[in-house]
């Protein structure tokens, strides 16, 4: 019996060793939360090409894309990570506010060592410095797309009506008055879910108070109740009172707001370069899309707001963090960046300067030009995570007339103070 057992064990050992020799690579599946529009055939084609390149360099590895069901702002990313069946890499909307939520909850891994080993050279130096200042020197994200929020408009509509963008904020109000009188909705606000109304509100705050003041406010060095900032709240409320933003817009979500603009029932929409992808998805003629900055009475303040819009992160629940790091390293390569930047679906400002790249969509050049003098602060991505919800709710309150500019500013300041 003992003889039989030892022979059987030897047979099994030989079988296992033989199997291991026959297949030297271990099958691994790397799951990434994203890309956002993977259902779009053009997007899928691009990302399948990127994935194929990585899989060819890493035999036995399969990359799977998880179509995102939401963002950090609505809790979908956190729920996915905490489910333990979540992704190895998350690619989602970021910015310090959203990052604080997942970092404080211990949901993402520090990547500081990777930055020391070379990732710092793969992003703009100012971006690297900004990331190092966020979490006491620890870095948890790899920026992928930078935002530059400005005003999108219909070129043909403006040309037909003889509307042009002025240099002053008062001129901008006059322009909206003309648009309103023509029966067209001047501006879209869509505050029901994340982002959209925050973009518009942040832009109004910046052109009223100035980017320097807003930088101090979002970093907590100046209170939201500062009279220059409250003047921005008042300017926004004034847009509602003059009918440029309708109170019923308080219920619009991002999709409904986009639909209102792309159906040419509204003249202007505030968004970043990513809006091109949405317009393309809706079969809107991209040549008709115009992009400009919001006029300001303050010198040099007619610039986009922005910040880090999209980042890669590695969840603490990832079962193969090393492979996840290799994947991100591959995404930061010149080969992948250039491929993405020149693809028709490209609608991002990448985290480092790319030379010899011609964007497939000409309006991207207008965005690069608008952002060439720098971008201001989009509060949606800079305020702490625990403040951001109050920030969005106050915008809804201003549009629906439930809160005054002074009270709204005080409420945001109260949560900001608590967060600090």
């Amino acid at each position, binding site marked *: 019996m003992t003889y039989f057992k030892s022979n059987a064990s030897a047979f099994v050992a030989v079988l296992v060793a033989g199997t291991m020799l026959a297949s030297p690579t271990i099958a691994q599946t790397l799951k990434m939360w994203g890309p956002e529009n993977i259902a779009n055939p053009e997007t899928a084609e691009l990302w399948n090409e990127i994935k194929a390149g990585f899989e060819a360099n890493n035999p036995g590895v399969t990359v799977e894309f998880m179509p995102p069901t939401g963002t950090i*702002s*609505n*809790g979908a990313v*956190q*729920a996915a*990570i*905490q489910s333990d069946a979540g992704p190895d890499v998350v690619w989602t909307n970021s910015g310090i506010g959203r990052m604080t*939520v997942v970092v*404080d*909850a*211990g*949901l993402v891994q520090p990547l500081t060592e990777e930055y020391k080993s070379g990732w710092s050279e793969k992003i703009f130096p100012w971006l690297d410095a900004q990331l190092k200042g966020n979490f006491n020197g620890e870095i948890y994200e790899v920026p992928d797309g930078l935002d530059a929020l400005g005003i999108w408009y219909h070129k043909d509509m403006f040309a037909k009506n003889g509307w042009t963008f002025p240099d002053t904020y008062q001129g901008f109000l006059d322009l909206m008055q003309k648009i309103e009188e023509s029966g067209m909705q001047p501006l879209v606000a869509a*505050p*029901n*879910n994340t982002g959209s109304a925050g973009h518009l509100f942040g832009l109004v705050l910046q052109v009223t108070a100035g980017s320097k003041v807003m930088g101090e406010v979002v970093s907590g060095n100046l209170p939201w109740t500062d009279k220059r900032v409250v003047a921005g709240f008042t300017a926004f409320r004034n847009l509602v009172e003059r009918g440029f933003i*309708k*109170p*019923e*817009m*308080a*219920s*619009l*979500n991002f999709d*409904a707001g986009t*639909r*209102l603009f792309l*159906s040419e*029932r509204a003249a202007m929409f505030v968004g970043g370069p990513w809006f091109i992808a949405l317009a393309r998805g809706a079969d809107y003629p991209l040549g008709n899309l115009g992009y400009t900055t919001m006029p300001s009475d303050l010198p040099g303040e007619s610039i986009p707001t922005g910040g880090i819009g999209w980042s890669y992160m590695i969840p*603490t*629940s990832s079962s193969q963090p090393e492979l996840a790091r290799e994947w991100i390293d591959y995404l930061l390569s010149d080969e992948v960046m250039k491929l993405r930047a020149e693809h028709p679906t490209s609608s991002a400002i990448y985290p480092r300067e790319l030379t010899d790249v011609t964007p497939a969509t000409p309006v991207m050049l207008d965005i690069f030009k608008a952002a060439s003098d720098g971008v201001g602060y989009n509060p949606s991505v800079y305020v702490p*995570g*625990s403040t951001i*919800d109050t920030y969005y*709710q*106050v915008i*809804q*309150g201003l*549009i*629906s007339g*439930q*809160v005054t500019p002074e009270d709204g500013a005080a409420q945001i300041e109260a949560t900001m103070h608590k967060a600090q």
Partner: protein
Amino acid sequence: MTKGPENTLARQNSRGADPARRLLSAEKPGEDGFFAAIGFLLPALLVYGAFTLFPIFRTVWLSFTDSGGYNTAASFVGLDNYTALATDPIAWRALWQTVIWLVLHVVLAGGFGLVLALMIGRLRNAQVLFRAGFFLPHLVSLGVVGIIWANIYDPYFGLLNTSLDKLGLGFLQQGWLSDPTLVLFSVNLASSWQGFGLYMLLFLAGLQNIDNSLYDAADVDGATEWQKLWYVTLPGLRDVMTFVMSLALINGLKGFATVFVMTNGGPFYASELITTYIYRLAFQAQQHGKAAVLCIVLSAIAVAITVAFNRWRASGDA
């Protein structure tokens, strides 16, 4: 031949009369099925413990900590979360709006279910058709219902406002989901639309149980249709009504999906419910301790409603 009924009775008496003697007797627990019973109960107990008792105790524990979720160390903070929420105006607003939501759900879903059941209850051939048709919305998930109704309510492209405009009733157009005074009603209507079909079926079942001879007697007495409804039908539906009401109250307390999809609690918290605020705290702000407090509050309300309702029902039966 010694195991007759008398013998069994004697054994039972001896157990009841003298536990000490039973302990000293040679009879083992397994002989009367003790271990078999444990064996049968164990799987259910394990499932109950893992999926009901453990989460309850865990939630209570979380409510006394500053847990930020997942990988963070949670420290004991005593009653801090309770006192913080006691002074949180949004929590109070969400609580009050949850009460309004409950009442609206009972009235709209329960009431509509009753009215429809009364309307189609007497139909012979077409009842199946109407019954199936009215029950269909109940088969649609609340998330999908939310998306459908959010589009119906869209102020610019929605079916409701555009229909009003086409009918020359443009003056009735509203921001159904943006007006703070309307939003809770609008969302509740969508939620009730999904729920009324089930209540209608329950009422129909109740109507079939009412003795037809009571209607015959009412006819003989010359009762009007209204009197028959008031004195025969509604009293005959009393048991079903109490059941539907408790079901509607519990379903109302669970209201979440339609609000989350249609308004996300807005505008400016005007449709925030306890459930949506729990989600906001737990999964958006990662304040699991505070979210746990609200879970306990919600459970306490559910228990209080159930107990109060059962007592009220019992007093009526007496």
